[in-house]
């Protein structure tokens, strides 16, 4: 393909990273800080609205024998309730509202991001990191409230000679601090990699002309995979939150 042709086709090829651009929709500035309403904010609002509508409208009739919609709403409730019961135990009940909100927000953000032209909120590391930081700080505060200074025993494995502490304690502390980073990175990397890949293959379709059927087949397969990833990553984030919570409450 010569240069002119490249230019001609260049305009058709979607830039794979363009979809992650933040665009300001409504500039707002408070106290010198840029708090504009962007497309990311818009899609967060959409996700929250969708969750609220899904649950409140689904439970509007609250029939004893649920219809399809109510059934879905109840299923999502029961799913998180049993996740919390299995991983945290009875004490986990009190944290149900938070965990349920987290799961539904992630699930809906991931799923809405799969709609063409939609923006994927969770493909931005700052969003996932903010969520992970909330989980991490919350869990740490709960552990300190519940166990007081005993929480810091957490960083020194039992049965270790004291002269090893200067080496082991920093390692344990760093390993503990790495938790929110892994939590955030995993969700972010999965979402971003998937969406970039979809766009890259979509670019091939235009370039290849008639032979573009092959990349279309790949896109269909990838899209199916992306649906799984969207649900699975919301689940993984939630179950890790549950496990951290269980750690904080029981403190081995």
């Amino acid at each position: 393909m010569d240069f002119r042709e490249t230019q001609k086709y260049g305009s058709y090829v979607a830039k794979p990273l363009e979809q992650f651009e933040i665009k300001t929709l409504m500039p707002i500035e408070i106290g010198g800080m840029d708090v504009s309403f962007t497309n990311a904010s818009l899609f967060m609002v959409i996700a929250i609205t969708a969750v609220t509508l899904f649950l409140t409208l689904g439970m509007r009739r609250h029939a004893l024998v649920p219809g399809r919609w109510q059934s879905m709403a109840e299923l999502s409730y029961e799913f998180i309730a049993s996740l919390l019961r299995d991983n945290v135990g009875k004490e986990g009940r009190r944290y149900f509202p938070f965990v349920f909100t987290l799961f539904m927000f992630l699930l809906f953000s991931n799923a809405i991001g799969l709609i063409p032209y939609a923006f994927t909120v969770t493909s931005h590391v700052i969003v996932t990191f903010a969520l992970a930081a909330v989980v991490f700080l919350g869990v740490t505060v709960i552990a300190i409230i519940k166990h007081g200074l005993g929480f810091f025993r957490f960083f020194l494995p039992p049965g270790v000679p004291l002269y090893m502490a200067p080496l082991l304690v920093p390692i344990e502390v760093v390993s503990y601090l790495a938790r929110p980073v892994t939590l955030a990175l995993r969700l972010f990397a999965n979402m971003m990699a998937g969406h970039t890949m979809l766009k890259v293959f979509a670019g091939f379709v235009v370039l290849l002309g008639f032979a573009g059927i092959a990349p279309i087949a790949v896109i269909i397969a990838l899209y199916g995979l992306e649906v799984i990833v969207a649900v699975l990553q919301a689940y993984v984030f939630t179950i890790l939150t549950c496990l951290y919570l269980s750690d904080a409450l029981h403190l081995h």
Partner: protein
Amino acid sequence: MSKHDPRPSLEDLDARLRKARGETSEDSESDGSGVPPSGLGMAFRVGTEMVAGVVVGTGIGWLLDQWLGTRPWLMVVFFFIGAAAGMLNVYRTVAGFGLAAGYRPPGKDQPEDKGPED
């Protein structure tokens, strides 16, 4: 259902539903996830753990250096500590200690729960 039947109480219905589903009472604990770990997911998880350990360690070292003015020594030290923490996390992930930090006293909890796959 005819009109003359006395309606069974809801508690009774709930108990029968639980029994039919094979659920036990509220406060039972079973092992966590039902999703079996896949190879790729595991590899990805191990990768993130390792990278996050090193990044967090180096970051802490860098911040301490800025604060104490000892550049670059603490960053070098914490790079290795971070790498060790990353490896520790990888070991915990792979050895099936779930995702718990810290140690469990031996015998108290069997390292059977695999944690979720990625």
